[in-house]
């Protein structure tokens, strides 16, 4: 493929939204209340909408007859390039909102930079997606504050979720070889540029509601290069079931 680097770069952006969208989609009909159920599936739909634009673009670049659906549904685990944070399970509502919050803050900063990309398609997608991402950030920040500032139990649950998921936050700022090439060409985003801003924003909200910022320097990464946690296989099994069982099925 001529544009393989760009193709993979697009996947690494799109897969984040796809995998988080799938996790949120699992909540459909199972949210803690009717209102939060609809809110989470709304966010999932926003993310899937973004995913379509990215994969359509990727399919065009691939030029081998594969469609956006093939790219979304028919890759193997090692070919998904999302960060590890987003494949983590819906342990409880605090985990769901903490995961969302830790991603949303990154996502908004990332899209802000992607708007400036020299690739007009990526810049246009970012331009549209950033409004959705800003709302997601507002929604998830409010929930982090609400649970952090709520009862003793909700505070404890949010703190546990933040502590457990913290280990995945540094991966956002890990530059792969593909990232570096794309940054060089002014197509990709230099994530290191807003790393401080990311942690400042996150920490400020945690401090506001007396949540303790984890101090650990131990971080996990690998997703961006296709090395995933044990949860990914199960997630993909569910995501891909229909296409694997009834190939080419559509409705």
């Amino acid at each position: 493929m001529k544009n393989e680097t760009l193709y993979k770069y697009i996947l690494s952006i799109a897969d984040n939204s796809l995998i988080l969208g799938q996790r949120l989609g699992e909540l459909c009909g199972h949210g803690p209340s009717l209102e939060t159920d609809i809110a989470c599936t709304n966010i999932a739909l926003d993310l899937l909408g973004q995913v379509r634009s990215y994969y359509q673009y990727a399919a065009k670049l691939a030029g081998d007859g594969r469609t956006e659906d093939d790219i979304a549904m028919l890759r193997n685990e090692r070919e998904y390039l999302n960060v590890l944070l987003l494949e983590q399970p819906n342990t409880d509502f605090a985990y769901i909102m903490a995961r969302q919050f830790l991603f949303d803050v990154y996502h908004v900063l990332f899209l802000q930079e992607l708007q400036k990309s020299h690739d007009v398609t990526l810049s246009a997608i970012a331009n549209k997606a950033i409004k959705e991402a800003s709302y997601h950030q507002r929604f998830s920040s409010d929930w982090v504050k609400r649970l952090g500032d709520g009862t003793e139990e909700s505070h404890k649950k949010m703190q546990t979720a933040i502590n457990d998921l913290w280990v995945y936050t540094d991966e956002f700022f890990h530059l792969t070889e593909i990232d570096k090439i794309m940054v060089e060409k002014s197509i990709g985003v230099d994530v290191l540029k807003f790393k401080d801003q990311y942690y400042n924003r996150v920490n400020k909200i945690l401090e506001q509601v007396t949540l303790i910022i984890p101090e650990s320097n131990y971080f996990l990464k690998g997703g961006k290069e296709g090395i995933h946690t044990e949860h990914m296989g199960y997630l993909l099994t569910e995501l891909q079931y229909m296409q694997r069982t009834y190939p080419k099925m559509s409705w």
Partner: protein
Amino acid sequence: MKKNWPLWEVFVRSKNGLEHRHFGSLHAADAEMALENARDVYTRRNEGVSIWVVESKYITASNPKDNGELFEPAQDKVYRHPTFYDLPDDVKHM
């Protein structure tokens, strides 16, 4: 801890220039959550440009039991409608 979040009434303005209309109600723990829930529950198909939420307990409602004294006296007073004027043909839209 109370089991249910308080109830909120949702008013949505569907277009600039129109008034806010009552769209329904929902549960939320605070005003900010009520606004976000209203956005997700009632405006996700492009129904609105502005949302008001108010906790249901702050709405004072008339009692159906009082309907007789409140509303019946108006029923036989047709002269309160401006329907007894002869309108010149040139006046449109009345």
